[in-house]
């Protein structure tokens, strides 16, 4: 009789455990869904930021902002003629004393 009671109690514990695990699992589905949604929205946010960065860094935008800030194109560019090797300082030629 005692053995029967123990078996019954054990089975009851198993049933309760299964119910508990099932409840936990059913909630876990919600958590998975939440995480999926979060991952999707973060991926979307990443893409949004990449687009914003590209917009800001585009030369078209840089030129526009430069114009607004009052930058003007240089009319004169000073170019230095090619220096021959003989004219270069020795350190540039790699020679040491």
């Amino acid at each position: 009789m005692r053995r029967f009671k123990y078996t019954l109690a054990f089975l009851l514990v198993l049933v309760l455990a299964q119910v508990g695990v099932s409840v936990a699992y059913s909630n876990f589905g919600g958590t998975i869904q939440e995480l999926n949604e979060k991952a999707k929205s973060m991926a979307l946010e990443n893409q949004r930021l990449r687009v914003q960065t590209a917009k800001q860094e585009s030369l078209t935008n840089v030129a526009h902002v430069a114009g607004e800030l009052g930058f003007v194109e240089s009319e004169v560019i000073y170019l230095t003629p090619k220096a021959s090797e003989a004219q270069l300082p020795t350190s540039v030629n790699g020679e040491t004393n």
Partner: protein
Amino acid sequence: MEKRISLVATLLAVATFLLILRLGFWQVIKNGEFSRIARAQYLTGEEITAQRGSILASDGMPLAASQVSWQLWADPQKIEKSPLDLSSTFGPLIFREKFPDVSEEAKLNLLKSEEERIKKLLGQKEKRWVLLSDKVSDETLKTIESLKLAGFGWDKVNSRFYPEASMAAHLLGFLGKNEAGDRGYFGLEGFYDVTLSGKSGFVRQEEDLRGNPIPFGFFSNVPANNGLDLVTYIDRGAQFIVEKYIKEGVEKYGAKSGSVIIMKPTGEILAMASTPSYDPVKYNQAEQAVLKNPVVADAFEPGSVFKILVMASALDADVVEPDTKCDICIGPVQIGKYAIRTWDEKYHPDSTMEEVIVHSDNIGMVFAANRLGKEKMWDYLNKFGIGRLTDVDLEEEASPDLRDRDSWGDIDLATASFGQGVAITPIQLIRVAAAIANHGVLPIPRIVEKIQGGGFEQKVPLQDEGRVISEEAAGQITRMMIAAVKYGESKWVAPKGFVVAGKTGTAQIPIAGHYDPNKTMASFVGFAPADNPKFVMLVTLREPSSSPWASETAAPLWFSIAKELFPYFGIQPEE
């Protein structure tokens, strides 16, 4: 009593049997059907859209990329406010997306018509779905969401985004639609459509009543393979410069259209721009004729720029030397019923071949071509890739045919020597100049350097079609082109201190069977620094009206761009 009991037992047995039969019917015979219905209830599937790959400039910045936007719709039966109120709320929001750059004068009318359109759509009470906008941005969607209005919804759509707006539009192409969905058309989008597209995936899983996934239930996931990115040789800075100058140049010289290509002698295309152009986002608002890239799709008679090819061929074939004297350069040459003249009616007896190039002398070119002969001329044109595709990685490339070798007459040889009667595309022409700058080896123009994405990386090899002229001949024609810049018609625009090899070309445009002297194709092709070229550039202007001559239109434009490119590419003056 016993009889009753056995009757009840029999009835129960029969009932049980019938029940088993019925259960068997549902469980066994109808099993397939019910399983399908059940699966449809708890098994859900969702397509995972593959993201289209980006097209990147050489510095890694995107020229075209994918972005998420939203399709905005409404259910007119569920809206709670009046269509008039809602149109004044949605009108400005959608208008801002549709016409970002509209002028203040046009704004009022367009906004009014947009509000009218929305009011009309929302007033269609018999409908359950009307499309308000096929593309609104995240920012606009957030604003709409915050209004918390009933009867409105939105769906995610992938669209193309161009950070530099219409810059390099012809080169990039655009993303359109066909029956199968998105498809790239023209340019890189068209050529590399399969590579950029990727492959959509699919996820199937069991879901509970609330739509949440069932842990340890059925789950099948075929991941999406996103499209691969294209890393191009396009230099954003150089592209920005040529875009600006070609627009200004076409306006300044009153041309109908114009193009610029910059490439390295080994074939890497650094910049390519044409005007008129279009906005790839609004490709459906552009004229059909503007969508194709004229650099690879439009043919023209090149005129005098073609002389560099013919002279290089004659030098390579050893039929002339740079100091060979032209003994027919005393006046016009008669070939059959045609009289060939110089462009300025000036004749230079005993000109050397270098002087022929400097003066852009048609008679001198006829002399060189006659020495070369029809057969060899045809062979060299073929070797230089005239009459066939260059294999540049742009979808719409086309090539006019080179007439059969046997059909060439004396007049064809003569006119081809100064670039008339032969049609080529700008990309074919710059390739000829690139072959000279590349010491005689004909490159295959290439825009994409490598394909990458998802841990994959593959370099697109640079290729060439082998040697077309000797290194010596390439050096000789280069020196002639240097002299042409220094002493030729365009010497007034050449910058001091830089050694540039170049040649002008003014070709009359054939219209209805004859050449119109007032309608010309002006071009200038050249490379710098001449001894160790960093870039080869071609400028073409169609029908410039300020002057028909290339020396007064295409050449100054070429040198204006070159002056910007010298410091940009770190090219120092020689003197």
